[in-house]
């Protein structure tokens, strides 16, 4: 399975990529929503995107809205991974089309649990 990690912090990209890589995902990374959209528009496909909210150029919510507006990308699972922890923000993201929401700080197990709920853990991975 292919995953795209979208975060302006290269630290967080590496942390999330290490977790997903350990779960068997093939990882790509983008530094903001615009870069990620460029990848999709160039024809790359992903099963999963883990998306930070607060990023320069294009934020995570704008990215979710843009992805959900395109029929050909509707099979991609979108998880917000963000410091935006208020209930109202969670509701906004889910209403925009995100499937799940992980609030920083989080543990690797917390992210794996969300993936398991979504049926996205590759076969053979513990939950």
């Amino acid at each position, binding site marked *: 399975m292919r995953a795209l990690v979208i975060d*302006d*912090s*290269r*630290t*967080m990209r*590496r*942390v999330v990529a*290490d977790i997903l890589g350990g779960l068997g995902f093939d990882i790509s990374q983008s530094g903001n929503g615009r870069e990620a959209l460029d990848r999709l528009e160039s024809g790359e496909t992903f099963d999963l995107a883990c998306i930070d909210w*607060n*990023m*320069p150029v294009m934020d995570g919510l704008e990215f979710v809205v843009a992805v959900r507006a395109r029929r050909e990308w509707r099979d991609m699972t979108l998880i917000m991974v*963000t*410091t*935006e*922890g*208020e209930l*109202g*923000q969670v509701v906004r993201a889910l209403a925009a089309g995100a499937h799940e929401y992980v*609030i*920083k*700080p*989080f*543990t*690797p197990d*917390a992210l794996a649990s969300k993936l398991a709920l979504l049926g996205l853990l590759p076969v053979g991975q513990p939950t």
Partner: protein
Amino acid sequence: MSMVADVDTSQIVAIATEVFAAMIDRETGHLSEGSSVLMTLSDPLYAWVELSTVPASRVQLTTDVDTAGDLTHAFLSMDEAEPVVGADVMDAFGEIANVFGGSIKALLPEHVQLTLPQVSRRSPSGSAAVRLNEALLAWHGRLLVISLWTI
């Protein structure tokens, strides 16, 4: 007075404990309150985010550059021998401040905006900034200061 003024030291320590246990050390026990220990910063590095409270406020982390390097090592689960470059340290320390800022923001009764993190070897404190609260923490025995400001 800013809503951030209502955040007390015990809440700052609780957030720090959660952040370090989840994302830095991946276990508890390496962070403690350091107020009773005589510690100073000799080569400080500052990381902060600002909140759109009224008046605006700042969540600031301060530690020594060497300690920030070790924090980066731990955050990224790097091998002992793997070198940490300055850009990694700036990014990692800024992200820790970002996570702290988000956790402080979540304590506030109203939605506010959080800026992207900034990191500098110069203190961001302007002449109008007023410190609201401060927690002195010891991470592996080394000083980490978390302070809340109105700006």
